[in-house]
């Protein structure tokens, strides 16, 4: 039991961090970022290169991942999403762009890093063993704690900094924020960069545990969409809740349902559909986003 809960928490912390970036981008721009999983993979590969190949300290690598993705995110917003959103008749057109960017990032990652599974040396060795009731390697615990710290830092940033306030105002009502003197173009870019940065950060954190490969992008995007849907699109607390709920469901489901074969995700998806049919806006979302 303790084991299941600990696994769920550990998964949930990472999932929440991925979902945060996605929901932030959605809240600000109404863009469903299909490339979020690819951003995560890119972050993983940057950490792999800096920490695994060049041998620099892990935290430097993590910083590089975050910085790279922030720059990539800012450029994508400035030169791709902004012009397209300004000129298209229906804002759903941004989905085509997002998917195109996902393909493009896949292609770049394939050419630069190859299609092999990559891993890095462990950051700390050893395993926590509490009476055989709870067994968890120390590096997982460290990564879980780092993820929790990042979430806390993000919430503090959004709540108390000037930028965070501007971003929240934009998420609530873009026009009103603009009338109050918020430079929405600038903050949309900052927000997109921040969302991409979070994806890169998780990629960098997770590469130490699961490694990284090209194929992880798509499934990660789908999981991130799920979490955002559970919590409510564009709501920060909802994304965190969604992340932890999905992490727990996965952890509990894999234990309970393992006897019936590989149906954990079928059950999760089916129950999600029922849940959304009853409560379309998720746990905390505003109706119709």
């Amino acid at each position, binding site marked *: 039991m303790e084991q299941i809960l600990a696994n769920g928490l550990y998964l949930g912390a990472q999932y929440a961090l991925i979902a945060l970036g996605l929901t932030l981008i959605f809240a600000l721009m109404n863009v*469903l970022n299909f490339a979020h999983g690819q951003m995560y993979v890119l972050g993983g590969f940057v950490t792999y290169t800096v920490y695994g190949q060049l041998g620099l300290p892990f935290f430097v690598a993590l910083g590089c991942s975050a910085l790279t993705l922030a720059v990539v995110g800012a450029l994508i917003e400035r030169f791709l999403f902004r012009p397209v959103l300004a000129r298209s*008749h229906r804002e759903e057109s941004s*989905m*085509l762009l997002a998917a195109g960017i996902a393909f493009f990032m*896949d292609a770049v990652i*394939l*050419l630069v890093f190859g299609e092999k599974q990559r891993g890095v040396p462990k950051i700390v060795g050893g395993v926590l063993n509490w009476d055989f009731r709870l067994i968890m390697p120390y590096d997982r615990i460290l990564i879980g704690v780092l993820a929790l710290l990042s979430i806390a830092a993000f919430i503090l940033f959004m709540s108390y900094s000037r930028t965070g306030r501007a971003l929240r105002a934009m998420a609530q009502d873009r026009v009103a924020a603009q009338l109050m003197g918020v430079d929405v173009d600038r903050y949309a870019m900052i927000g997109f960069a921040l969302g991409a940065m979070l994806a890169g950060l998780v990629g960098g954190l997770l590469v130490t545990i699961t490694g990284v490969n090209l194929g992880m992008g798509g499934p990660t995007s789908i999981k991130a969409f799920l979490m955002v849907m559970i919590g409510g699109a564009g709501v920060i607390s909802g994304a965190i809740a969604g992340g932890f709920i999905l992490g727990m469901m996965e952890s509990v489901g894999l234990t309970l349902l393992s006897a019936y074969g590989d149906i954990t995700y079928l059950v999760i998806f*089916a129950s999600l559909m029922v849940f*959304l049919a009853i409560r379309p*806006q998720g746990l905390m979302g505003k109706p119709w986003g």
Partner: protein
Amino acid sequence: MGTGLRIAGVLLFLAIVFLGVPWAIQASGRWDFYYTLTSVALLAIASAGVWLTFYIGRINIGQGAYALTGGYVSAILVMQAGWNFWLTLPVAGIFCALVSVLIGLPILRLRGVYFAMVTLVLTEVARLTALALPITNGAKGITSIPLPGEVSILGLTLIPAIDTFGDVKLAFYLVAAALMVIVFAGMYRLVNSRIGHLCRSLQQNEELASSIGVNITYLRIVAYAISSFLGGIAGAMFVAISQSIYPSSFTVVDSVNFMLNCFLGGLAYVFGPILGTLVLYFGWDLLFETGRFQLLIYSSVLILIIVLLPNGLLSVFERKRATAR
């Protein structure tokens, strides 16, 4: 556009599809293009369904689920009940339409990204269900499905067996193209009918439409059922051509591609899905020779197109018309 010009355009299109393409393939010797173009025709049919849901203002990323369902219905009926393929084709479509009514009743109340996400999840549900059910034979799928046989009534052959043609590839191409032409003729008729106008009112403002007496629930279900019907027959046809189906035959990527086909062609144009599918699928195939740069070139061109023409390829003509005025 005048009526004469329009008829000429349609005739030209038909001539290209049924005469021009076979001639060009004959001349160039690229027989593999038949398979590519057959796929384009079938994917365009499925995309037409997605386009129709766009038309009522819903982003549908779940067409893969219905294509998969249609494929399995046809495969199971042919293999286990011994039905003729041509009979299973409409049955697969109708089965998908019925399923979509059941699923659509609750989920069509959702809008925007919420509907998009639920349909995306639906694709995964379909794949995982196909993996878990015994009748679909799990990950091994259903293979060596016979080619479509002949249909005859009282000894009169209505549709000859597909292998009596000298060239199976050509036969399949013609069948798929004919199906596509019929579907898009129907779509054009539908969009320019009373229901089409009502659908457009849903796209703009559901509350307003409802307030002036449009039965929005009924209309949404009808549009979604037609959409899923098209997905089902496209999937069934695909199975007949590839003679096999697996849970991974239609996945989230395919669902997303169906949606992209619509976007690329332009959401405001009935024939957008044909052009979008042709450019995306055929373009991908043509780039095969560039080897490992295939995806890079493909995605760069895709991004370039969407940045230059955010309202779809067919909006090129619109801009010309606007400047001419």
